[in-house]
């Protein structure tokens, strides 16, 4: 599986980039740091947009990052099929950049929430979820203040009818997301955005009490190797 190169993007205020790189490395791929201010994707095979508070989450989460020079390269590349995973702030950026529909808004509780969250995998056909079983129940940490997924009725209906909802919260919705949505994908299943954090659930010793996050990374590696 070696040789696969997964870009990990750092914006000012990105927090989980080292964690994401470590998770990529543990899965056997090479993490490639990508800097927001460069117009350069460094020829990577896939991109991970990690969590954090890019630009302090000022204005709206992801609103300013969307305009970073790197995004000028990433947006067209993603549209032409480059696999992209956005977690938390990365998901917010993907929505702000219109690579995924809808938006992430203030948690209904009005509190930031960090907890180990039950999640059901409802689409295992995306580039990032092939190593899950369809309908598999997993545990990943969530940690965000603005993770309530909203979209227009038409968009929601379309997401649901085309199987583009990838993850749903189980055992209590942490943020009031519509239809318990925790993550979604684009039409072709190459771009996935979710609020939970797979990169914090890849090692026994640290992070959440699960290693369910590993399958994201093994999924993309298999896809890249088989491609």
């Amino acid at each position, binding site marked *: 599986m070696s040789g696969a190169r997964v870009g990990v993007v750092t914006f000012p205020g990105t927090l989980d980039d080292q964690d994401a790189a470590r998770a990529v490395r543990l899965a056997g791929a090479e993490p490639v740091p990508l800097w927001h201010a460069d117009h350069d994707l460094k020829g990577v095979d896939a991109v991970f947009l990690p969590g954090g508070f890019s630009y302090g989450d000022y204005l709206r989460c992801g609103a300013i990052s969307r305009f970073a020079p790197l995004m000028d390269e990433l947006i067209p590349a993603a549209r032409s099929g480059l696999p992209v995973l956005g977690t938390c702030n990365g998901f917010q950026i993907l929505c702000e950049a219109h690579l995924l529909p*809808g938006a992430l808004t203030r948690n209904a*509780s*009005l509190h930031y929430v960090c907890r180990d969250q039950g999640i059901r995998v409802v689409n295992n056909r995306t580039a990032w979820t092939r190593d899950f079983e369809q309908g598999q129940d997993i545990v990943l940490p969530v940690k965000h203040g603005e993770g309530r997924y*909203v979209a227009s009725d038409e968009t929601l209906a379309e997401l649901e009818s085309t199987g583009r909802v990838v993850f749903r919260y189980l055992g209590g919705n942490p943020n*009031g997301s519509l239809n318990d949505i925790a993550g979604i994908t684009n039409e072709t299943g190459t771009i996935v955005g979710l609020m939970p954090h797979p990169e914090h659930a890849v090692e026994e010793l640290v992070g959440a009490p699960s290693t369910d996050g590993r399958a994201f990374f093994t999924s993309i590696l298999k896809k890249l190797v088989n491609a």
Partner: protein
Amino acid sequence: MARVIVDVMLKPEILDPQGQAIARALPRLGFEGVGAVRQGKRFEIELDGPADEAALADVRKMAETLLANTVIEDYAVHVEG
């Protein structure tokens, strides 16, 4: 030098938990007679030049692309005063 205001509010169909929390708190604080509250954002933008049509068009574009997320928010631009 002029000041232009951009008001950004969640679209009516989008849940506004902050507004709701305030509306719920009001009776407890002894305020009656409020039907609903919605909370949005207000931006005060200081222009280096006058708030002429060209400048306002610029601010509208700023609102459309950056200050508001038109998937969930509406905006209004006006000159202060």
